[in-house]
């Protein structure tokens, strides 16, 4: 069980930091409420208008989500490489380069066919 002590300590540290910073800002920060503050948060951009009565989300969110999933999961194959890159030496570098090249073929398709354009 000794192995878990550092992980536990790290977890406690992280939780403590989060609680501390939120708590401190609640006490010391200025309190000014305006429309932008109270609006729903969408990664800092202007919120996309939603249809009245809780309609469905536009299908363009779907494309973004799917592209994210596929490119995100590809990275999993970099993980074994990252663990053993020093032993694999140049062989690993070349293989990973080829792998990323094939991922970029898919990326080029998405980019050229307008998959990355929002409107």
């Amino acid at each position, binding site marked *: 069980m000794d192995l878990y002590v550092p992980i536990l300590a790290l977890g406690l540290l992280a939780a403590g930091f989060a609680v501390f910073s939120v708590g401190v800002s609640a006490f010391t920060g200025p309190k000014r409420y305006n429309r932008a503050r109270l609006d729903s948060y969408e990664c800092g951009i202007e919120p996309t208008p939603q249809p009245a009565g809780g309609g469905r989300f536009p299908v363009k969110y779907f494309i973004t989500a799917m592209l994210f999933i596929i490119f995100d999961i590809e990275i999993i194959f970099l993980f074994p490489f990252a663990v*053993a890159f020093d032993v*694999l030496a140049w062989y690993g570098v070349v293989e990973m380069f080829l792998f990323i090249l094939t991922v970029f*073929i898919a990326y080029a*398709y998405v980019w*050229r066919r307008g998959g990355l354009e929002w409107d």
Partner: protein
Amino acid sequence: MTLPMQPEFTSPVIEYSRLYPLLIVFGVAAVGVLVEAFLPRDRRYLVQVVLAVLGLGGALAGTILVAADLDVAAGDLTARGLVAAEGAVSIDGPTVFIWGVLLALSILSVLLFAERRLEGGITAFAGQAAALPGTEAERQASTRGIEHTEIFPLAMFAVGGMMLFPAANDLLTMFVALEVLSLPLYLLCGLARRRRLISQEAAVKYFLLGAFSSAFFLYGIALVYGYAGTFTLAGIDRAVTDRVGGQNLLLAGMGLMAVGLLFKVSAAPFHAWTPDVYQGAPTAVTAFMASCTKIAAFGALLRVFFVGFGGAQWDWRPMMWIVAIITMVVGSVVALTQTDIKRMLAYSSIAHAGFLLVGFAGVFEGSSGYTGITSLQSILFYLTAYGFATVGAFAIVTMVRDAGGEATHLSRWAGLGKRSPLLAGVFAFFLLAFAGIPMTSGFIGKWSVFSAAWSGGAWPLVVVAVVMSVVAAFFYVRVIVLMFFSDPVGEGPTVAVPSALTGIAVAVTVAATVVLGVVPGPVLDLAQEAGSFVR
């Protein structure tokens, strides 16, 4: 805490000189994606078709070269070839035979995909799959002549997966290959230009059931891995022969893997998707799926069960006997009641899966010095005969049309023989080949499969198979009678004149079916040359 010593790394040996047909197909598929990305819309069609045909042709030529210098496997009398890519892929006689047949059939299928004249200058695939059926956007897409040329790279990826599937020598590679061949097919099924609701429904059904069955396949792999501690078929064979550990794990794993594989060959009771998907998918895709998927899946089924689970054959043989009988009966009997030509051909393909399973369940592997045909070799020949006749029959279906597209209802085929004797005659010929009438490829195929099963001691199965062949012959003959001896109802369908692409596909498949029936010797010899699997 110290890290364990890192073992010395030796880079894997990849036998590029044996694997290049596979790499050509995947490479051309990737280039096809780039073509889609960078070429202007009006140039894509031609480039994609040329690229696909050249790529498949190059891979076929490569396969022949690879087949020509396969070495005799060490310590084996019948097998030629080697296990390549660090045990992931085996390049042996059956592999190169299947590759050759698959590539030849996929070239013909790509020609059907590329057919433009039947729809009035446009392919039979949806102009814009994202546009809703019946909307303004869809009408605009079709009046502007937009078409999805992505179908060609998708088909190439599917062909690549199909080549890898029967060649895979470890279960993980096999699973990845299964998905690589399935995912493009799910999409292709939903891309019909006409009757899009049916096409989309077929895609959803195929996808949900396909994902369900591959989950079973995967869990089977996990259990077999738990039993044997390795993914390689040779390692599993050792574990099975030595009877290590709990047999329950092995039996459950074998059963679950069989579910996944039998789903792909559309054997009953895992056949429910077949009629719906074959009917709903664009006919060119159906031709491709019905022939190539079945070949690839049978290759994989044989390899897993003969090489990996050969030592446990007394455990799985009874199961396969039952599946074979159910499949033949369901396929032949239910086909009698069909009123749609594509659905009828789908049930016919289920019945053929049953006949092929007879050869498989017979498990006759020959012995040294034996010169007759073994189960594996007879199945390879049957698959060749079945594949060519299937592509040809579906190619004919694309040509019989009325105002709404293809006229697939059987009543619309009445009297076709009077209107277009040539086309009806060719179709009748394919049906006779399916039925296994002498002087056609189907007869030689059935004969060799049944005789191999008989030699393997599965004579009750052969008796059932012969009876079911007679039942199946009945519904093929029914269509022939309908075409030649009844009068057309009302206006009747028209027989559209296709471009040279479909023409070539039909001509080649007719020629192949005749040659395989009249002089089957050379191809039978080739199938026997294929020998057996390397271990």
